[in-house]
């Protein structure tokens, strides 16, 4: 009985985190972007500094008519938002937040599971782009595919470097093996992982697939109401997952300068929040990369860097053995 309760509590916690963290991040993005651009951002909804703006948005989205274009592939079009969103929920369950058993579920092949499931999210955008029967959506979908193919590889290689350092694929296991000097040791891999993750999420400066000035909103052009909201939620959930993963793999997760026992989850959340801030910051400060520049960056910069990181990890690891 207590086992069932335990699992239920863990699943509920993961689900609540999945619903709440992206909203917090969304509101933060409104405000951080506003202040970086010298304006106020939403100020009315909810009274205090527009804290309820996203709730107001949700109400608006829920009331909007759901339009499926006459020419679209109806079933696929309707299912695409779910495919884009659900993988992020599944990934959250294996991310450890504190020491001991403060994790949704121990998965032995954690890194592997995470990378595999994250790839499915992109499939949602592809489905949307193809099923819309819209030229702009199709272009957006194809660009998404190009981005996935360019950036999955550096991400994979950078993650492999951490797995080599720790000698395990399990995320809690990696944190057990972590020492502070891993941060400078794996820093190149960390940067590659984070950059590649941004590109996979189609966040600026890698937002070519949704470039509004040329292809309207890419694969999501034809979406309205609730389904559009789910795509937006997927984007923010993706940022949360990417930042949490970078934290766990490269920044030591729940390890902190002090108080690792009681403050573990606080450190994890703090590092994740800091990375999320950087994601928003990058959106405000960098112009969009062109599609060929994107590919070139991945193949001529990130992949060689990731390979070099693997070599470095291998040599150091064997030497210190």
């Amino acid at each position, binding site marked *: 009985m207590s086992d069932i309760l335990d699992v239920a509590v*863990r699943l509920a916690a993961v689900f609540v985190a999945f619903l709440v963290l992206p909203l917090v991040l969304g509101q933060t993005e409104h405000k951080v972007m506003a202040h970086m651009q010298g304006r106020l951002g939403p100020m009315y909804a909810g009274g205090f500094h527009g804290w309820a703006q996203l709730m107001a948005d949700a109400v608006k989205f829920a009331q909007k008519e759901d339009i499926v274009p006459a020419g679209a592939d109806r079933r696929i079009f*309707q299912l695409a938002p779910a495919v884009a969103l659900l993988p992020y929920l599944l990934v959250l369950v294996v991310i450890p937040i504190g020491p001991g058993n403060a994790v949704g579920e121990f998965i032995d092949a954690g890194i592997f599971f995470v990378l595999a499931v994250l790839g499915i999210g992109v499939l949602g955008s592809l489905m949307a782009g193809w099923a819309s029967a819209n030229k702009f959506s199709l272009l957006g979908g194809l660009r998404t595919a190009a981005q996935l193919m360019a950036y999955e590889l550096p991400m994979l290689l950078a993650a492999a470097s951490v797995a080599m350092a720790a000698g395990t694929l399990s995320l809690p296991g990696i944190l057990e093996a972590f020492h502070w000097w891993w941060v400078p040791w794996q820093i190149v891999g960390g940067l590659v992982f984070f950059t590649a993750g941004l590109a996979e999420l189609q966040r600026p400066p890698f937002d070519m697939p949704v470039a509004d000035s040329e292809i309207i909103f890419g694969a999501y052009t034809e979406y309205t109401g609730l389904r559009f909201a789910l795509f937006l939620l997927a984007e923010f959930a993706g940022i949360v997952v990417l930042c949490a993963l970078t934290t766990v793999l490269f920044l030591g997760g729940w390890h902190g300068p002090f108080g690792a026992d009681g403050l573990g989850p606080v450190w994890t959340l703090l590092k994740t929040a800091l990375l999320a801030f950087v994601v928003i910051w990058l959106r405000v400060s960098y112009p969009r990369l062109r599609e060929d520049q994107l590919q070139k960056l991945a*193949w001529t910069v990130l992949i060689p860097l990731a390979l070099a990181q693997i070599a470095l990890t291998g040599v150091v690891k064997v030497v210190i053995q």
Partner: protein
Amino acid sequence: MRTASADVRLAADYFDGYATVGLLAVVGVLFIAVAFVAGRLLRPVVPTPEKLLTYECGVDPVGEGWAHTQVRYYVYAFLYVIFAVDSIFLFPWATVFAAPGFGGATLVEMFIFLGFLAVGLLYAWKKGVLEWT
């Protein structure tokens, strides 16, 4: 000594975790289903032919949406498949390469492996595959 039944139990424990993942997937599907049904109950449905028209900057769409387009990155796609399949093999290796008894030999093997990948990448680079025009 591990017995056969112990091995079976080990394997069963190993896959136990995925039952929770499966449960969470069910929770997620339920969430989506509830959201879609609730959305259907809440929103208005007043379709008109104009609304259902494909949106292309406000002009009536010309031709089919599934238009022909040149996928310029198909060579990248091949590259990706080759490299990704290679890299998958890094993971099982990564968990054991520094274990006692492996040491230097596996390190040399790793450099050979990386050498293959690097030469492949250099070849593609020299061939001009990574230029996009």
